[in-house]
């Protein structure tokens, strides 16, 4: 026996009904609802490290080391925007091929620049943008105090920009690096 309502509907209305129901379901999908809670971010303390082996001394390497030392020296004597500009110039110096130590020097300089940026109005997001890619959890970082310092500055910038997950992860990674360095010193 055929249901009377069904019997009264042709293929056109049936299709319209199905479409309407389908669209209704899509519209009710909670994942697209703007009012739905955003996925909770959790701290990621993943740490990959490597030891920086001393590279073979070259003239280019020595010139780079001197140039970086000069950048810090000039930054010490500069103030405000001049200091920021000096530090930015240091980061833009081309790194000689094969100079493994440059990675640590650049992190140290970036941490100093980010630290300086944090003292300026609205500098925290810029500091975070500068350091976050250099210290990404997917990257292997040099086992050095400069890395630990950079992670702390990134954590501070994350706190200032309201990203507690990034802050906690960065602080935890910094502590892990320093603990590794401490254990290396143990007799």
């Amino acid at each position: 026996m055929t249901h009377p309502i069904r019997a009264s509907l042709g293929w056109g209305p049936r299709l319209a009904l199905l479409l309407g129901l389908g669209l209704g379901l899509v519209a009710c999908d909670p994942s697209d609802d703007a009012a739905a809670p955003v996925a909770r971010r959790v701290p990621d303390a993943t740490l990959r490290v490597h030891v920086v082996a001393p590279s073979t001394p070259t003239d280019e390497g020595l010139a780079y080391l001197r140039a970086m030392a000069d950048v810090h020296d000039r930054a010490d004597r500069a103030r405000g925007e001049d200091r920021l500009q000096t530090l930015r110039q240091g980061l833009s110096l081309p790194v000689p091929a094969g100079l493994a130590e440059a990675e640590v020097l650049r992190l140290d300089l970036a941490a100093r620049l980010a630290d300086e940026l944090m003292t300026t109005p609205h500098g925290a997001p810029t500091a975070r943008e500068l350091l976050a890619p250099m210290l990404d959890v997917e990257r292997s970082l040099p086992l050095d105090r400069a890395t630990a310092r950079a992670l702390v500055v990134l954590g501070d910038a994350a706190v200032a920009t309201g990203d507690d997950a990034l802050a906690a992860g960065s602080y935890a990674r910094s502590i892990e690096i320093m603990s590794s360095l401490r254990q290396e010193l143990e007799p």
Partner: protein
Amino acid sequence: MRETRREGSGWVLASVALCLAAWVAGCAPTGRDGGVVTPGGNGNVPDGPDPDGRDEGDDIGVLEARLERLTAEQAAKASSTEANFGVCEDLCSLTSSICSVKEKLCDVAERHPGEEEYQGLCRRAELECSEAEDSCVACVERRERAAAE
């Protein structure tokens, strides 16, 4: 008083140096059996242990070698103490940094009381800080013991 004592020890040193020089030159006083006598002795006492009971030897080469060895040992000990000082400085400086970052991390975790990811990181940081403090204290104590020896 101090001057007198300094002069006195200067004379003793000068006498010892003179005797040593004479002995090296083959003019040292000898006992009846022809053996070398201890400066200040009566010449009849056979060679034997020095006052602290250890045989210092009677050969200039042996004495020189011993002096060199003791000098080297003293230098090594001094250098080791200096190295320990540097290591403790580094250890304690790292400890200070670890504990300072722990404070920051746990401040962030306090804002997320029900979230285990944050609380776990804070607990671990507290443990690292505590271990680092112990390590710093132990290093300083070792250094002080070494300096006292």
